[in-house]
């Protein structure tokens, strides 16, 4: 799809958040010189094109009591990575699941998942459920719990170019 200048301006203004008022899309339009209808039409189009991935509440997981976050990595034969990725990602407590490149003998892992839990014990229990159900126990694996969060920012917008929302890619 073609993203025109007005779309970009709209995406820029929108990423700061939707106004919590009865006619929020009209408010957004007022700031940009667009009618409420035009805002709604454009946002619908941007959603359908997949540029807007989600819309709604973006939670701060630590505030909801999710204090333990584990990145679990496995060394899975390449030809099986897809099947294991699909199985792992079907579990409700898995918040992210990716295949990534290995880095030599020191980092042979190619399948990553993130589990957010209220504490480490819960996360480890969930992991053990996951490993049993997916028959993952034979593969080399490591658990990297987060110790500190140095930086977590929301959306960024630079130089009137693309907009990026890193989501929970790491945390």
């Amino acid at each position, binding site marked *: 799809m073609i993203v025109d200048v007005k779309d970009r301006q709209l995406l820029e203004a929108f990423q700061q958040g939707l106004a919590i008022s009865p006619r929020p899309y009209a408010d957004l339009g007022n700031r940009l010189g667009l009618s409420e209808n035009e805002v709604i039409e454009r946002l619908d189009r941007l959603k359908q094109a997949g540029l807007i991935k989600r819309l709604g509440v973006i939670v701060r997981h630590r505030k909801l009591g999710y204090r333990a*976050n584990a990145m679990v990595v496995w060394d899975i034969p390449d030809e099986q990575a897809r099947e294991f990725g699909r199985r792992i990602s079907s579990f409700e407590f898995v918040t992210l699941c990716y*295949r990534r490149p290995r880095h030599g003998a020191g980092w042979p892992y190619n399948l990553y998942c993130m589990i957010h839990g209220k504490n480490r014990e819960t996360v480890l229990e969930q992991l053990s459920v996951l490993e049993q159900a997916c028959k993952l126990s034979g593969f080399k694996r490591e658990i990297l719990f987060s110790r500190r969060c*140095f*930086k977590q920012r929301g959306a960024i917008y630079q130089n009137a170019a693309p907009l*990026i929302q890193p989501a929970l890619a790491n945390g």
Partner: protein
Amino acid sequence: MDEIDCKIINILQNGFPVCAAPYRQAAAQLGLTEQELIARLKALLDSGALTRFGPLYNAERMGGALTLAAVKAPEDRFDEIAGIINSFPEAAHNYARSHELNMWFVLATETPGQILQTITAIEQQTGLTVYNMPKIKEYFVNLKLEA
């Protein structure tokens, strides 16, 4: 946070209407009035339980790029290295993790080429090797945390 707040968070993580009076529509789904929903969302934002109320964009579809990267930061230089990495506007998240690769961060840039430029700059400023772990494939998950 009470039960109603939890319900609001759980339901509105799944989506929000794009229509003239979206709070009225969402409130009806939640069994609340529009005014109640608005008041509660404002309170949840003020308390910091919600980071934002709005959209999440797809970086790649926007033409931008994302990667996950890690370094092995020596313990005695840990804070210095964190400071250098966090000073890059491209660094979105940065977490200390329990491993020899002990610092994991997400880089988000406007173009794919800038990822490598940023990695090179971080390597120059820290003197460390940056392990670049871009995604090869993302497996769909229902990105939602029960409140």
